[in-house]
């Protein structure tokens, strides 16, 4: 490469060296180093940060997708958000999704992974991992259809089982009842996501040195004590990360609800994602939909920051 006139000598040439060493000015050097990441920054900026900023801009307008008319309304959409009863329902449903997912997909999966990893036979361990993972490999649409048939009133498998068990009084239209619709969707989601979380925990458990279990056994610790005193502390980082990822995922849930109830009956199973979709694409209220998008962003951003804080705290503690 030809050296330009902007290059400067940096002090005297080393002894015995025929050509003095050339160095770029510090700022130019830093700027040049950006060329390696410029493309990545551009892509991330355009596809991640620009939509976030533009979403906020859109949320301060009302837009008609058919006419293209835009009116600036300031923070009116956010005021409407605060008074929208469906948003409150959706927030509650997202929260219920998060809590139940933590119970089943984090703590339930942790216990199950511990049990599986305690099985002596390698072949059986693999078999159980595969059995629990299979639901995660099925598409949400197919799972939704499957559970629709399970939940059907009168002729569904669930009501059939309840009736056979003498609990016919409990049978109901699980997806058609406002008090159960969201929980029926959450239950399906747990069935589908449980195996994936279990697999992640088995990987974390496999990394725990066997010596620790041997030492615990020599100290007289039984399986429960080993789970509490060895497995749980040694997988704490994975557990913490899973909790945060699960909460974030719960506030971004969309497909499961859309496939099974579309937010009904009477908006009782709406989550923020489906309400955003309905506002934007069914009711032609793109500005308000963008405000709902900002709310989702704020919640998931808070979860992301918590994750960062948790990771840093762990590093400092280590």
């Amino acid at each position, binding site marked *: 490469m030809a050296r330009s006139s902007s290059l400067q000598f940096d002090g005297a040439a080393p002894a015995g060296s025929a050509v003095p060493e050339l160095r770029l000015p510090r700022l130019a050097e830093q700027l040049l180093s950006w060329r390696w990441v410029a493309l990545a920054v551009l892509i991330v900026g355009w596809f991640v940060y620009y939509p976030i900023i533009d979403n906020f801009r859109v949320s301060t307008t009302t837009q008609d997708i058919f006419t293209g008319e835009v009116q600036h309304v300031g923070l009116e959409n956010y005021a409407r958000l605060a008074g929208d009863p469906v948003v409150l329902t959706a927030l509650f449903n997202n929260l219920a999704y998060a809590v139940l997912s933590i119970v089943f997909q984090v703590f339930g999966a942790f216990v199950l992974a511990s049990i599986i990893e305690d099985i002596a036979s390698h072949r059986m361990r693999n078999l159980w991992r595969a059995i629990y993972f299979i639901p995660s490999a099925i598409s949400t649409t197919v799972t939704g259809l499957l559970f629709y048939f399970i939940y059907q009133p009168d002729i569904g498998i669930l009501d059939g089982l309840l009736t056979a068990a003498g609990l016919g009084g409990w049978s109901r239209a699980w997806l058609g*009842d406002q008090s159960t619709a969201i929980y029926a969707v959450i239950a399906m989601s747990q069935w589908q996501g449980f195996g994936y979380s279990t697999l992640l925990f088995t990987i974390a458990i496999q990394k725990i040195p066997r010596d620790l279990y041997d030492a615990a056994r020599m100290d007289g610790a039984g399986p429960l004590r080993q789970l509490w005193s060895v497995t749980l502390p040694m997988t704490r980082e994975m557990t913490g990360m899973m909790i945060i990822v699960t909460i974030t995922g719960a506030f971004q849930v969309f*497909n499961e609800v859309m496939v099974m109830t579309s937010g009904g009956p009477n908006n009782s199973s709406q989550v923020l994602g489906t309400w955003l979709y309905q506002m*934007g694409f069914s009711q032609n209220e793109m500005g308000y939909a963008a405000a709902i998008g900002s709310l989702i962003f704020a919640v998931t951003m808070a979860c992301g920051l918590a994750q960062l804080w948790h990771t840093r705290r762990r590093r400092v503690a280590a």
Partner: protein
Amino acid sequence: MTRKTTIAALLAAGTALAPAMVPAQAADPAAEVDYSGTLTILTKFGMQRLQPYFTDLAAQYEEMHPDVSIELIQEDDDSIKGKTSTLVASNSIPDIFFSWTGTWGGNFVRGNRAADLTAVIGPDTDWGRTFAPAAVDAFVYNGRNYGIPLYLDAKFMGYSKPIFDAAGVGVPATFGELLSACDAIKAAGYLPVSFGNKEPWAGLHYLGQLLAYNVPRDVLEADFDPATATYDDPGYAAALEQFAAFEDRCTIGPDVNGVSYQTAIQQLSDGKSAMYYQEIIEFDSAARPDTALTADQFGFFALPAPADAAGDPMALEGAPEGYMISSASDNIPLAIDFMKFATSPGHARTLSAPPYGQPSAVVGGGDPETMNPSVVAGLDDIAEASYLVPWLDTVNHPRVAAAWLSEFQGFAGGTSSAEDVMEAVRKAAASVAN
């Protein structure tokens, strides 16, 4: 799609795509056709039974015009609204796209998204004369023609003749007789009416017909417009009360919200229910050679009007459905030529006959020899109807339609009262008017 990508896609769609510039009409519809290029078509024939119709049309047209390529996007009843809105928001509306009549179609006219077709399908045009005049008129906005009607649609109660015979009931002439027939059918051990309201528009179809019977037409039409809507006619409460009685005596009750409309129609086809309230375009799928209920065992009647109802007892819920051409299309004459091809007498007869069973809007577009006799008879009823009341979810402003859909689903589920429904609708109309 993962949750993160879904939300990202929603955000992206809701931001970068929304402030779309509305294009002006690109070409003269009556100009000479250039048989080259690509045509994109968004259809509502996404169901497996209906898909081959447009697929075959496209293949035939491409064979006739080798320089033309046709790309089909086939959606169904549930997905078409969302798909269309997404395409509009991203300024990617296909050359030819499905539209209902009423406010839904009016959105495309209001936004200059639909090409003005008056010169080719308007009054006194050769092509326009080939259609049933009422069907063409249904797509007239501001005195101009914007749509090409493809088929006629209306709602009827389909029933199983063997179950009616087993229960010893005849075709009910009044709403009261229908309720009594339900009691008799239930006593005979059958489900009187299979009804799935998981998709809330299914229940709204019942209400639309009952409103036409109970609310005078001029009041109803004034209420369709948020600017003049009052929703204070006592016919609304009467219609809701009638629906509640119907749901209680004829269906599985509030659990209907957990059943999809497809399951419900299947129950009629399987001989498990005596009746299913369906569109004429579903007659051929309800009773087929491979279903327990065969075509000759299938009968239908209009939902009977309640005695002394204040509205129009001869009204029928339904509307033609058709296609519009994008004003932004690069080749509007070619798109029109394709639709002329699709609505030619031969293709109209194919559309009207099984397995499609979509009664063509073309005059003489159905051959009684090849069509399902029930569809032929249904067309006669449509012709005799004094007023075709449009679907509540497409004739109303989207916000008002959403209020009807959600609150009426709550009413069907027993969690909302008639007052709750009307209050929600009134509030939605007022918020639009303001």
